[in-house]
């Protein structure tokens, strides 16, 4: 993520000013007011309890075996919540991120988050309605990033929130057929969703300490969550491929996608980071 230069300098200046007044160097782990640290989210993709490996099939509860060859998605609008329920909302213009399984882009890095002990997090899956362009600042272009990761729709004009593609077999088709699930909003249905997750361990944000929140994303839930969506039932008329890109299915998938994330563990301290 590129960072707004002016703001960084200003925050650094403010932070420096406060630090120089303080004598304690956080040896006790106390939260020092007006200091800042970073937070990392690590999105570890899995499928029905196992690791997701592109090219290797997994079987869902409808007896369909999916071989995924592409999984990219957008996460956004990060919020950290402390024990008292106070919320730190990450600046919206900088709060849009992509993950990409193929290219191993799995980490979301938030900078200059107020020091604190955080108990829960909230974030969105996709891009919220009417705020398409918030990810665009004078210096960065979220559109370009999303387009490079196949996360844009250009015949209509929005973002794909999740791109989930591969081949599948089912009790009705033994030979593998293509599937493409493109999740997103359109001008009729708002398919952006948010999830709030309690952390199993407090995430301690301190100056110089970056907690890493390790999430597991169960991609199986997209089609096999509260609502079951069979790929075979969604074959095109020729019976050659299943493309799910609109209509009721997007609403169901949006709701299923909120079941996808769990926080596995939190690393605190300066060391052991992913990437």
């Amino acid at each position: 993520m590129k960072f707004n230069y002016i703001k960084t300098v200003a925050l650094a200046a403010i932070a420096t000013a406060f630090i120089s007044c303080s004598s304690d160097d956080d040896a006790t782990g106390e939260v020092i007011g007006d200091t800042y640290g970073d937070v990392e989210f690590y999105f570890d993709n899995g499928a029905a309890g196992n690791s997701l490996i592109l090219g290797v099939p997994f079987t869902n509860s409808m007896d369909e075996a999916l071989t995924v060859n592409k999984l990219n998605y957008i996460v956004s609008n990060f919020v950290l919540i402390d024990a008292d329920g106070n919320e730190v909302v990450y600046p919206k213009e900088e709060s849009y991120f992509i993950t990409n399984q193929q290219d191993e882009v799995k980490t979301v890095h938030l900078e200059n988050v107020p020091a604190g002990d955080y108990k829960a997090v909230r974030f969105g899956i996709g891009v919220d309605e009417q705020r398409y362009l918030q990810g665009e600042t004078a210096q960065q272009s979220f559109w370009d990033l999303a387009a490079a990761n196949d996360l844009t729709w250009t015949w209509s004009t929005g973002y794909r929130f999740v791109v989930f593609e591969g081949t599948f077999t089912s009790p009705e088709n033994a030979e593998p057929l293509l599937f493409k699930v493109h999740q997103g909003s359109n001008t009729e249905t708002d398919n952006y969703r948010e999830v709030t997750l309690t952390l199993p361990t407090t995430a301690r944000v301190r100056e110089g300490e970056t907690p890493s929140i390790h999430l597991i994303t169960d991609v199986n839930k997209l089609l096999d969550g509260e609502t079951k969506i069979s790929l075979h039932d969604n074959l095109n008329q020729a019976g050659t491929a299943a493309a799910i890109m609109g209509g009721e299915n997007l609403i169901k998938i949006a709701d299923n996608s909120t079941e996808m994330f769990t926080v596995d563990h939190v690393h605190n301290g300066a060391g052991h980071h992913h990437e």
Partner: protein
Amino acid sequence: MIGLLALSFISCNKDDGYEAVVNERLDFVVPANFPAPAQDIEHNYPTQKGFELGRKLFYDTRLSANNTISCSFCHEQENAFTHHGHTFSHGIYDQEGTRNAPAVQNMAFQSQYFYDGASDAIDMLSIAPIHNPVEMDETLENIAVKLKQDKEYVKLFNQAFEGGQITSGNILKALGQFMTMMVSANSKYDKFVRSEPPGNNFNQKEMQGLELFRQKCASCHATDIFTDSSFRNNGLPPNPNLNDLGRETVTGFKRDRYKFKVPSLRNVELTAPYMHDGRFGSLESVLNFYRNGMTDSETLDEQLRAEDGTLGIPLTDEEKEALIAFLKTLTDEEYINNPLFYYQT
């Protein structure tokens, strides 16, 4: 600390190498007879430099893959920014699309764009024509690459967006600002309803047409934008060669089959041919269709079905004439001749 902050700003300015220019906010005025804008103008409020940049982009063929087609190629000012005489707009590599180019005007007052509502944001809608393989067949990312080679553009983006770079987002915003300012509100009709000058009147035929319009047409062609941005099936027989499903293409819902966005009727005298596929060459033909050319289907708008089951809007020949006289009062010469929207170097 204030000193420090100031310093950091100064160093930013030095970095980009341009003199600070004054970039005034433009005066976006809502005409007295208009409803409130349907887009959040503040989100990307038009400035002098942003508007000028948007205009330059609108007329620039580098927005297409082989540098031959600009937005203005299909949206010509003298025809209220439509592609006059083309049933289907033809675009890059001389290909034809399947829809007729609608007027670009009063976009900020509309909540949905394109006949199927493929976009609902003025700052995003340009994505569709740019990427459409039969229109411009380009990508925003590649346009940015091309424009970066042009020093003039580097400067203009920098001025329009406070040190901004040439990015996809800023290209979209500049085009959005240009379209936000494209307001047509000075037709004979507008002046009549605003009493400019006081006592300004319609002749008898136009008056009759206005009354008929309010009774029979204004439920869909609503407000002084002459559309409510809704999607409706007005009974056009589907064209079997195209089988354009309309709104269903976007939503995936069967209930939206053959529904198309209600087009604004401003400048309609200048925007022939008519309907999403440009099937009608004259207003007369349009009214003949409303009178007795409709096809029934599950999604036909209920208002077009009479209690006895007959379809259409009853109109006598005299009423047709009056309606056409009224529709012609929606022509806005000031808009189509406004030098603010001309191509300028």
